[in-house]
């Protein structure tokens, strides 16, 4: 069945076949702990060093700026926790950040949530007014639910003017992330480039102040308990993703544009998140008034399309998506399309041919 779309993470797309092969080979080798001296251990260490260099290069970072983590969801919370003065210094975050970042406010004596406009853009003026020299700012480069990209360059400029701390969550943009000249810590997830789940990248800019908040007796910036096979597969997936992106980025962007224009022209009462100029080229979020997302997802499933939804009636939570809510967009009748490089143009044509009929049928019920 032609599945064109995915859910919360792009990594729900299948792992790149070449990366999968590396993963299987590495598991077959049954590698020893690379810190032990043995010929297998040395081989593993050499491959790991290569993988680390390759990941750093692909992400435009220096190799000594990155650490691989085996529990990617912990990277942002720990990056924020280790920022200078976290807990007493003002913690500032955007209203559409991921919930594990928003949750860090519970560990801070002072926190400020920066609202977003209807297109999802951070209120830069409010951010500038709120910033103080000891502030810790956490902002996502793009949002995984809506694809909305923040003006990171302008945000970084505001933060550097106060010499404050800037953590950027790049898990949605992945290798599409263009880093600003100023940042303190970064967070990537290998799932964003079709790598395996269970590998993340934490980056600490050379010269930035940060101390590891986890218990440790020797100087260390990471637990280093990640899986070597997964790290090698993540590096390989990233190289292949970049090559695929070069060949497909224009095509993906035009497919998303087709979805945007077709839905606008053929379906009434729909909220499309963000504007075409400031959203990721592969994600679109649509909310249809008076439509049940549960039924919409089920109807599309029958036709062979797997889409995700931020509506409460589909998600396991009772609460609707805090992202759509913060933007003032309709939270029900929501579906998200997240295109992978291997999507066929014909699949989008088929989806667009079906969608108006499905929506009007569901609205009649």
């Amino acid at each position, binding site marked *: 069945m032609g599945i064109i779309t995915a859910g919360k993470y792009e990594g729900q797309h299948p792992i790149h076949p070449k990366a999968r092969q590396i993963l299987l080979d590495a598991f077959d080798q049954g590698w020893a702990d690379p810190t032990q001296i043995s010929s297998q251990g040395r081989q593993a260490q050499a491959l790991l060093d290569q993988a680390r260099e390759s990941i750093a290069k692909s992400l435009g970072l220096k190799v000594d700026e990155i650490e691989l983590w085996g529990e990617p969801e912990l990277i942002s919370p720990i990056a924020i926790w280790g920022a200078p003065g976290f807990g007493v210094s003002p913690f500032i975050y955007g209203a559409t950040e991921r919930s594990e970042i928003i949750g860090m406010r519970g560990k801070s004596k002072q926190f400020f949530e920066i609202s977003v406009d209807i297109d999802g853009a951070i209120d830069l003026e409010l951010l500038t007014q709120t910033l103080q020299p000891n502030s810790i700012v956490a902002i996502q480069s793009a949002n995984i639910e809506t694809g909305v990209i923040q003006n990171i360059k302008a945000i970084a400029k505001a933060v550097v003017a106060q010499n404050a701390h800037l953590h950027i969550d790049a898990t949605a943009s992945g290798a599409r992330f263009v880093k600003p000249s100023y940042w303190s810590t970064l967070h990537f997830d290998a799932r964003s480039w079709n790598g395996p789940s269970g590998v993340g990248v934490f980056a600490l800019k050379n010269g930035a102040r940060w101390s590891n908040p986890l218990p440790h007796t020797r100087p260390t910036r990471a637990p280093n308990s990640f899986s070597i096979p997964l790290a090698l597969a993540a590096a390989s997936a990233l190289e292949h993703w970049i090559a695929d992106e070069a060949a497909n980025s224009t095509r993906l962007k035009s497919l998303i544009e087709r979805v945007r224009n077709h839905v606008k022209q053929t379906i009434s*009462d729909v*909220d499309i998140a963000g504007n075409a100029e400031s959203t990721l080229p592969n994600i679109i979020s649509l*909310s249809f*008034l*008076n*439509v*049940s*997302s549960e039924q919409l997802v089920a109807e599309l499933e029958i036709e062979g399309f797997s889409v995700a939804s931020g*509506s*409460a*009636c589909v998600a396991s939570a*009772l*609460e*609707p998506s805090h992202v*759509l*809510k913060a933007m*003032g*967009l*309709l*939270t*029900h*009748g929501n579906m998200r399309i997240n295109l992978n490089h291997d999507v066929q143009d014909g699949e989008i044509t088929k989806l667009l041919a079906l969608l108006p009929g499905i929506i009007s049928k569901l609205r009649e019920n």
Partner: protein
Amino acid sequence: MAFELDCRGKRCPLPIIELSKKIKESELGQEVLLISDDPATAADLTAWARMTGNEFKVISADNFLITKSN
């Protein structure tokens, strides 16, 4: 006199769908008191009002007064 639309216990998007139906049948200026304990209702009413050109006021956590204005 506001028409009372009791949607307690109904999950999203039912309160908004029922409200849309009621407003469609109503005359301009008609008020509808929507009672809904679904956590999505408050957020969705903002979007609904913007999309349909109607107005609403939050009376309490579960009570919303809607005026047909379009």
